[in-house]
């Protein structure tokens, strides 16, 4: 039988049982639809996490001291006092892969402006910090190294701080706030960055010159951590290597000894954050895939019923010259049509559901061509796989027995 005739015959017999065909298809529609939607959600969250991680800055590396184990007792990370401004200086001089570096100290601060008050973190850094973290100002300007040398009482604030102390849409440049009772002049406002990958508000921040926070607020002589950036993304591992060597030499640690500091790069953080969402995607897709297989079993079930029901029809077809393979193809094509049509409707359904989720739940979704192609191929494979057995059963019927079937 010619392919065209086969297709016509399949469409006719599916059209004879519209309700049944639709219900059988429903399994595939739901299966494919959920595969598409689940992958869209998974991919969407992965993408948004990646986008958020890029707000950390460009090619960022964090270096913080770690209590070395040589003393016998490990101390809490960050409590070590071994890191100094000397370290910052030597890294900026001897590590060619490092583009910029800044020391970092952090203090919690009670902020007061007029009758409003707010509690947040105050960071003490070099002006390079803004370059490393890719922070832009909406108004005002960044402090300079001169401000740092003089431990000037100036600061740059985030949008959340402005909103809570001065109200939205205000421009408090040049106004004073008290941080832990010390008056600071606001000289810049940072462009809003929103939440980071871990749900923290990145706009809830005050940034002041390093020396100001270190000396005036914390009264310490060491630095708590360093933030550096590599020249290019490809140079991140090199930069990390250079910093390790330079710092170990500076801290008089042999090559075989453990470093007394930890370096975490942006790549590490991105990997950490996306691996969880990757596992989630796989899990969701597996569940959706199982429902697709259940849909396939539905096809097989209906095709088996159909073969039994249509035994006489098969007999008639064989009596006028249908060969086993004609009958096989006819039933296989019917199964394939159910699954393919179900697959196409399922893809549309999945896209609609994804868009609905994006609209109503405000979840980020990304529909990829891969997932569409994959579910299309998968659903046709299911049609062939689950249609094969019933079709073969039909093809192996003996014409005379099939004609006698009541």
């Amino acid at each position, binding site marked *: 039988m010619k392919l065209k005739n086969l297709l016509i015959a399949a469409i006719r017999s599916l059209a004879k049982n519209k309700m049944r065909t639709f219900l059988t298809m429903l399994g595939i529609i739901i299966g494919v639809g959920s595969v598409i939607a689940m992958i869209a959600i998974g991919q969407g969250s992965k993408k948004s996490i990646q986008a958020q991680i890029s707000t950390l800055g460009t090619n960022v590396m964090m270096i913080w001291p770690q209590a070395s184990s040589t003393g016998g007792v490990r101390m809490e990370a960050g409590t070590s006092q071994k890191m100094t401004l000397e370290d910052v200086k030597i890294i900026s001089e001897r590590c060619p892969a490092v583009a910029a570096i800044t020391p970092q100290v952090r203090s919690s601060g009670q902020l007061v402006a007029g009758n409003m008050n707010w509690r947040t973190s105050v960071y003490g850094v070099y002006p390079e910090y803004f370059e490393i973290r890719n922070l832009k100002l909406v108004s005002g300007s960044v402090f300079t190294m001169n401000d740092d040398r003089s431990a000037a009482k100036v600061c740059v604030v985030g949008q959340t701080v402005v909103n809570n102390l001065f109200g939205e849409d205000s421009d408090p440049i040049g106004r004073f706030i008290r941080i832990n009772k010390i008056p600071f002049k606001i000289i810049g406002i940072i462009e809003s960055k929103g939440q980071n990958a871990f749900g923290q508000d990145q706009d809830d921040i005050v940034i002041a010159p390093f020396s100001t926070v270190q000396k005036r607020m914390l009264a310490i002589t060491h630095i708590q951590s360093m933030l550096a950036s590599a020249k290019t993304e490809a140079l991140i591992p090199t930069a990390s290597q250079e910093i390790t060597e330079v710092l170990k030499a500076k801290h008089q640690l042999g090559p075989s000894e453990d470093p007394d500091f930890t370096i975490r790069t942006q790549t590490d953080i991105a990997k950490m954050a996306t691996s969880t969402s990757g596992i989630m995607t796989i899990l969701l897709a597996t569940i959706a895939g199982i429902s697709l297989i259940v849909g396939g079993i539905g096809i097989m079930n209906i095709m088996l019923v159909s073969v039994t029901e249509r035994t006489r029809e098969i007999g008639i077809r064989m009596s*006028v*010259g249908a060969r086993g393979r004609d009958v096989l193809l006819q039933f296989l094509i019917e199964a394939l049509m159910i699954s393919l049509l179900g697959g196409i409707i399922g893809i549309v359904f999945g896209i609609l559901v994804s868009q609905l989720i994006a609209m109503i739940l405000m979840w980020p979704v990304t529909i990829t061509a891969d997932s569409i192609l994959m579910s299309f191929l998968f659903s046709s494979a299911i049609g062939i796989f689950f249609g094969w057995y019933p079709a073969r059963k039909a093809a192996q019927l003996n014409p005379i027995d099939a004609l006698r079937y009541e």
Partner: protein
Amino acid sequence: MGDVDVHALRGVNISIQQGDFVAIMGKSGSGKSTFMNILGCLDVPTRGKYMLDGVDVGALSKDQLANLRNLKIGFVFQSFNLLSRTSALENVELPLMYNRKITSREMRSRAIQALESVGLETRAHHMPNQLSGGEQQRVAIARSLVNNPVVILADEPTGNLDTRTSLEVMEVFQELNRRGITVVIVTHESDIAAFTKRNITFRDGKIIKEIEVNKPRNAREELSLIPVTVEEDEL
């Protein structure tokens, strides 16, 4: 199931020439249908030889048998065996679907031609359940002749029909036979057998009687004598 061997046919030796018109008679269970199924390549004999149009059918594969059924044999059943919810025209086209040498346009025109030769061209788009028994059987006959077979085999084609419609069906067979197609029918009624050229009687799987019909009845003439009563078709 089949623990007991049933010898439905034994020692049957018969030759049917081209252009012949044969009626197979005999009591119920005498092996007529079994014989027809073998002639129609729907069944194969456990022992013995069947030559059709110079081909030894016993030596053929399943696919070759299917081809033979498609191209050389037209089968008409007592219970019509039309595909339900499929129009008369599409039912007639069915054998052509499995004939790969035929284009779709040729398919349509040949099916319409076949329907014309049984006088049903006006019913082409009716479904089987919209047709009378006689009309359904004529559709089945149109289907059997659409591929220009060498032989048409009909197992009790008038078994479910009244006298008038039986005559109509016999008229079609006589006309086909006049055009040179070999026709073999099974019937219980000697009235019907009288329309054919040769009658063969079976009993217990054996041929017990074989007679030439001296002067076959003419279905067309007899039909024209019967006054047309209520047309059952117009329901």
